[in-house]
């Protein structure tokens, strides 16, 4: 973990309101697990004040670069979308614990399920799994056709299915509809996306091992402020907790209450 001014290599709009920001910086060398995130200060000064947590979507150690993909949404991400090549961005990272690649053995099948802006961290995960000889099946859900991104990149790494809510592209409905429809199963499932999706996946039993990446509003991003805690599941005392920022954001299904 370090705080570093990273240089903008490129910042491209790759789908409706979706931006792909590539940064260069020494912190790339510390990025080991897919699913970790960075805490981004989008502007100097007060407006806005807090950092924004964004997942690492892709790591390129050889070139000293990494990529994050974000949806332009509120004030912070709107400012981020304005960054031009050569500008410096204050980044704290890499943070948190990502998806355990070691839990998938070569030749096993991993199901990667992403929803919306939960898709990005799965890309680096898919790369690392494929690298290791794991077979990946990617199931990616989006609001509608114009929000779809990285489909062909994922397709290069494994079978890839798209679901859109309105059905104008890919399967109509949710990622779970795809899994049921295509009777997909695997040895391990990794997912990142909206909480209702994660809840559905947690109980569905599509794979014996399931890992989920959670989201929570953050302060410090490093485990000091207790902003982002969640309850540990089946904790009789009621005060056991995990911090999404430093214990997560990826947890084994059943570890914490979501």
């Amino acid at each position: 973990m370090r705080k570093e001014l990273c240089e903008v290599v490129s910042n491209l709009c790759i789908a409706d309101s979706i931006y792909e920001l590539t940064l260069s910086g020494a912190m790339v060398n510390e990025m080991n697990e897919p699913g970790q995130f960075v805490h981004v200060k989008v502007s100097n000064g007060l407006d806005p004040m807090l950092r924004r947590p964004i997942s690492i979507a892709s790591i390129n150690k050889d070139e000293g670069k990494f990529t994050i993909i974000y949806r332009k949404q509120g004030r912070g991400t709107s400012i981020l979308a304005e960054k031009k090549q050569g500008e410096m961005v204050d980044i704290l990272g890499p943070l948190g614990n990502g998806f355990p690649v070691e839990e998938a053995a070569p030749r096993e099948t991993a199901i990667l399920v992403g929803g919306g802006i939960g898709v990005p961290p799965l890309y680096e995960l898919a790369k690392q799994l494929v690298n290791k000889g794991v077979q990946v099946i990617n199931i990616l859900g989006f609001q509608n056709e114009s929000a779809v991104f990285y489909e062909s990149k994922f397709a290069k790494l494994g079978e890839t299915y798209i679901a859109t809510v309105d059905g104008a592209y890919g399967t109509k409905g949710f990622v779970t509809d795809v899994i049921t429809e295509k009777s997909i199963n695997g040895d391990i499932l990794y997912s990142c996306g909206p909480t209702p999706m994660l809840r559905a996946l947690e109980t569905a039993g599509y794979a014996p091992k399931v890992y989920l990446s959670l989201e929570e509003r953050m302060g410090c991003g490093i485990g000091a402020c207790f902003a982002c805690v969640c309850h540990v599941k089946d904790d009789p005392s009621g005060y056991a907790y995990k911090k999404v920022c430093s214990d997560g954001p990826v947890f084994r299904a059943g570890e914490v209450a979501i």
Partner: protein
Amino acid sequence: MSSLSIELPGLSLKNPVMPASGCFGFGKEYSQLFDLNVLGSMMVKATTPEPRFGNSTPRVAETPGGMLNAIGLQNPGLEKVVMEELPWLEKFDVPIIANVAGSTEEDYIRVAERISKVPNVHALELNISCPNVKTGGIAFGTDPEMAKELTKKVKAVSEVPVYVKLSPNVTDIVKIAKAVEAGGADGLTMINTLVGMRIDLHSAKPILSNRTGGLSGAAIKPVALRMIYEVSQQVRLPIIGMGGIQSAEDVIEFFYAGASAVAVGTQNFVDPFVCPTIIEELPELLTKLGISHISECTGRSWGKHEQLAYHRA
């Protein structure tokens, strides 16, 4: 002699800059980023007798120039703090200020008695100003009589000096300050957060699950300065000032208002290196301002600095 060393009741500080309670945990996380030994002191997270989970999430929301939090005093409880968190901090040459909280008088007394015996705890910070818990907290901090009584009782059991943390959510902060002075407090820390709220545009519901939360960060700086200015002229207790500090310049402004040391809260989240950076920059800033020792800044806006020789280390 360093231009930054400060003597306060119970605290011989190499410099007057410390992280504020609740914004630095028990130091472990930030120790991965810098050497905690540079800190003047450290105000650790509020401790209650039993472990607490605190409020449901979301617990933070951003506001213009500030943030709201409604952590709800989550902490691992007295036993764990005393047996694990504080001993871990012993490897640093940093006197600790332990933040004491609870729902009842008994809670405060229990925590104060035990925690004040821990060797590296050099002072207590009596948190009678947390706005995010249903019982205790701010109730003590808004009633002068209750504040005074609680201070007395905690003083009676504490083995180290007691600083009382004041709430800004009062009509007359001087009255509360005088009450805790009468109760025997050794110092004051101020300010805790202002009660505030944000509502989500789409759901029409409060962003914080606790609905309201404590406002901190740069936005509250002028309120903190005003209160320290008023209180420092009316009580004899040293004040550790806080509320929106972001820079060495801000630190000087707090001293001018009447503070004898400062704590940095929210800005740690924005810039985890803010404390070491300020500590590094202060000597040069003092030189630029023609001031030989930071203690000379205390109360300068109302002419206190002449009387302050005793503050120097």
